[in-house]
């Protein structure tokens, strides 16, 4: 008897597609009222998915300087003028621009020994989103999309994946669901705090429903003339969309019921509003939310005026990051929400003649909180001048495997590319068990 995995591989080869497989099963189940064991295994996969776990990625586009964030080196030549401050956890000191985050340190774990080889924005962004380097003929999914595929509830009004930040798909180096397709493709929000584009109805609700009724009636003819399957798919999509548009969940995108204090804590910035929206979406059951810090007030690519620019960026990101962690905790959501702060690489120990720092993938920092991560600790260490990893190096696969483990997702699970090639969610890597407490 073939194993289920083999069966899946056959379906991906294009002989029988997954949709047909499921359609057949449903038809069979309807006919007999029962399903055999293997069919149950296939259909039950959704039911077995861990409910409720979510991931929020705070993405610092451009590559944030570790020296001016979570690995300051005050008093050294490479550290520059940046000072270090105490945090809520004795012994952990971070850069001076992160006072609010410092107060949440008991819930945040820092990794100061991230290490990678890719120093070019686009490729590093792709790699630090997908775990893979870009290769011809294949688009890998962002890790968050792979996780959403495993965890997202099948029948939910809101999209499984939401991406917040300016530019949408035009944004530099946007990474989406790759070959995993539309079910976990990011729903784009460019202006957090208001109803997203095209979600608001073009006509009053009764007229919208009237139109849908007419559409449904007119579809019948084409369905009868050979468009039956296409019409059924289309109806399903329109029904799903109608549910989103008319559901009260849409109000998740607006902040009407948030107190002025809460809004103030996140800060009066798009990134702050993005973080507040991320909390609301996670609360409403969305599995993966990415909030991108980019654009004029958040370019972390500090080849010039590194110190003033990071300070400016931190004014926006520090309160938002801190408020997000505190707010999630206060609402009891932190235990099931993993918050990740990172960028595509770090920056050079050397301060260049433009008072900037250049790309440096060899050692950089990341911060994580929630979902069982033991906060108030630092993983790994960089050397005194910050030029190399001194202990506990963490590679991209190590890091991604850890994130999967925290979310109880099997990182070795294989998905099939369009030509039926099995690809693990994360290829290799060892989890950083110290992070998981």
């Amino acid at each position, binding site marked *: 008897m073939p194993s289920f995995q083999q069966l899946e591989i056959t379906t991906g080869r294009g002989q029988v597609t997954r949709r047909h497989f499921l359609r057949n099963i449903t038809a069979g189940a309807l006919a007999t009222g029962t399903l055999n064991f293997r069919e149950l295994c296939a259909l039950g996969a959704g039911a077995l998915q861990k409910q409720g776990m979510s991931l929020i990625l705070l993405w610092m586009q451009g590559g944030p300087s570790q020296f001016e964030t979570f690995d300051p080196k005050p008093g050294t030549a490479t550290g520059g003028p940046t000072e270090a401050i105490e945090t809520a956890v004795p012994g952990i000191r971070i850069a001076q621009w992160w006072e609010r985050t410092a107060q949440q340190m008991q819930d945040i774990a820092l990794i100061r020994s991230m290490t990678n080889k890719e120093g070019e924005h686009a490729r590093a962004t792709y790699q630090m989103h997908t775990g893979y*380097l870009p290769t011809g003929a294949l688009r890998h999914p962002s890790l968050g999309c792979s996780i959403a595929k495993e965890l997202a509830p099948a029948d939910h009004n809101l999209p499984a994946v939401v991406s917040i930040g300016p530019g949408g798909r035009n944004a530099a180096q946007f990474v989406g669901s790759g070959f995993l397709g539309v079910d976990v493709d990011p729903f784009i929000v460019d202006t957090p705090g208001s109803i997203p584009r095209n979600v608001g109805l073009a006509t009053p609700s009764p007229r919208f429903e009237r139109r849908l009724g007419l559409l449904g009636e007119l579809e019948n003819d084409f369905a009868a003339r050979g468009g039956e399957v296409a019409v059924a798919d289309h109806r399903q999509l329109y029904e799903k969309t109608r549910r989103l548009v008319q559901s009260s969940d849409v109000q998740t995108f607006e902040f009407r019921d948030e107190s002025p204090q809460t809004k103030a804590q996140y800060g009066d910035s798009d990134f702050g509003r993005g973080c507040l929206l991320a909390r609301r979406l996670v609360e409403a059951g969305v599995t993966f939310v990415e909030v991108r810090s980019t654009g004029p007030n958040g370019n972390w690519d500090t080849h010039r005026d590194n110190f003033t620019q990071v300070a400016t960026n931190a004014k926006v990101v520090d309160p938002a990051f801190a408020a997000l962690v505190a707010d999630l905790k206060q609402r009891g959501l932190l235990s099931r929400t993993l918050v990740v702060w990172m960028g595509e690489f770090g920056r050079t120990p050397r301060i260049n003649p433009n008072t900037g720092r250049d790309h440096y993938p060899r050692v950089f920092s990341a911060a994580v909180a929630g979902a069982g991560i033991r906060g108030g600790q630092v993983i790994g260490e960089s050397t005194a001048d910050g030029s190399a990893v001194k202990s506990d190096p963490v590679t991209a696969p190590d890091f991604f495997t850890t994130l999967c483990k925290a979310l109880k997702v099997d990182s070795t699970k294989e998905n099939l590319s*369009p030509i039926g090639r099995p690809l693990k969610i994360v290829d290799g890597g060892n989890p950083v068990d110290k992070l998981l407490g």
Partner: protein
Amino acid sequence: MDRARLPQIFAITMLVIGLGPAAGYSAEGPASQATPKKPRPQQAVREKRVQNRMLRQSVAVADKTTPAVSGDQTKSEAENSAKREAADPAQVAARVDKLITAELQQAGIDVAPICNDETFLRRVSLDIAGVPPSVSELTLFALDPSSQKRSAAVGRLLTSGSYARNWSRYWHDVVATRATETRPQFLIPSLAAFDQWIEKQLAANRPWNEIATDLMTATGDSRTEGQTALIISQRAEPDDIATEVSRLFLGIQLQCANCHDHPTDSWKREQFHSLAAFFPRIQVRPKGELQSRTQSLELVSFTPPSGNGRGGRPGDFLRGIRENPSLFIRRLDKNGDRQVSREEVQQAPNPQQAERLFDLGDSNKDGLLTADELKKLPDPPMNLPGRGAAEYLMPDPQEPNSTGQKLDPVFFLGGVSPGSGLPDLDRRQSLARYVTAPTNPWFAKAFVNRIWATLVGEGFYMPIDDIGPERTARHAAALEELSREFIASGYDIAWLFQTITGTATYQRQTRPRDPNQSLPFAAAIPTRLRADLLYDSLAHVLGFQEPEPVAEAEGEMMQAAQMIRRQNSPRAVFHQTFAFDPSTTPDEINGTIPQALLLMNNAEINRLMRASGNTRLRQILDKFPDNTAAIRELFLLVHSREPSAHEAATCRDYLDRVSNRQEAFEDVLWSLLNSTEFQTKH
């Protein structure tokens, strides 16, 4: 799959720009001679559109008067095949039909009847010209008594400018969706040049083997030489180019053999890397300012410095500096202090690259590069693909940091090799010759399968770009027949369109795909419209005009503005929501919520659907005061057919219920545009 990468080093660029000889490499003078010995002359492209096969052949003759693309021996095979007489499309179509129906009959599958005229005209207009037919075209076609009117319509569509534009957009999506170059400042201008280039090739009906050859052997500026886009979009990485060349031109997906022998097919790892070994000497270098948003790229052949016996690799250059730093310093040291300052570096022939080397070497960060520092010059930390190398080195997966094994180029189908140590263009031209040789059936089959699948809705092989000797075709004999005749036609693309659209298989009525049926092609299948087709269909119904394409801009500011305009044009925004990879199996392309949202709720589209103001709907309602006539006109416009009795009655009932004529017609139009029928080809 994380590939073991060779350390790829920018420094090799410096060799080319003239710093190299200082390092003691070239005995033959400045390495700036390292440009191709014979720059490939621009292929003259005939602007005049082709009316028929005869004219196409005259184009081929005209091409012979320009210098050959790839040396005399290169073209001979293609020319020989072009000299053979192309068969009559109708006869080939009939033979293909016969083979297909015989197999279907044997399997006990009934074929669907031939579709009616309006279904045919909409189908073929979308397939060839990328827009539905106008109402007057529909009427004229229906009234035309000629028995040849279907093939005549195809001929007209093929010679319309819309054909070349539509299919240039198709190929744009094919290339763009697999690009590993993701930096918009490089990718967008390169693809814009590609769009123009491929449109010209299609308008002139250049044979597919010549187009493929140009794409494989391209050199030049990415903004003006659109044929460079395939290589630029893969960042000139030999293994990524190999992957795409094999997938697009042969339909063989070799990339699984990148890291290990193919798990299910017989391809060996070495076969993949030997294909990559045709491309190591391609070099992509930036033109213009490094920080500029509009930097263009230049694709040139890299010639390794001679004289060191084994050909230079990037690492050799750095090693040379380490071993003899004083030569390097003397070259740049202007004030004679035997060290190089940043200011001195900035006066180097190529200051960007020199500054990178400076940053790499200045280990004590004192702003001065000394001989001692150069002796300890580290390897650069970054991957900089596409910088060119003398030879291709297959990485060792067990030892990612080792040098790897040098491979000579070998074409995996047939095991032919042009030899060792060849210059870039010799390698690429020989590969183009192997790939496009009429004796290689996979080149023709990959193209025939792709076009057939796009037109008919399903391919002989699915996915369309995973064919090759390891797969089994459905209706293999029909594919053989079509491919053989396509080769005989001299890879005439217009001929292939004429032939496929001339088959009864193409012209069948629509039926849903039966998942239990083992053989395809018994009926037509509805497939989703590509983003551009849907956009143009909307424009066709709602009557909006696209802004004129932006003229080629001069100057950095203008080019940046042009790029932003391109990125934010209505078509581009629409494209972002609706685009899919055209190589994907149609079955696996699902509609998305943002797509449905856009068509349902988008304010601009809803404004254009209104019955007030100067809209298309208003014009129709004014022209046809009778509701039944107005409904008929709307159906002709949106669905390219008349409404059925049931549909007409449904609409009339709706009008009665709503009792506001304008509002009710807006709702009818909304429903038609949001229907499955409008959004699919069937």
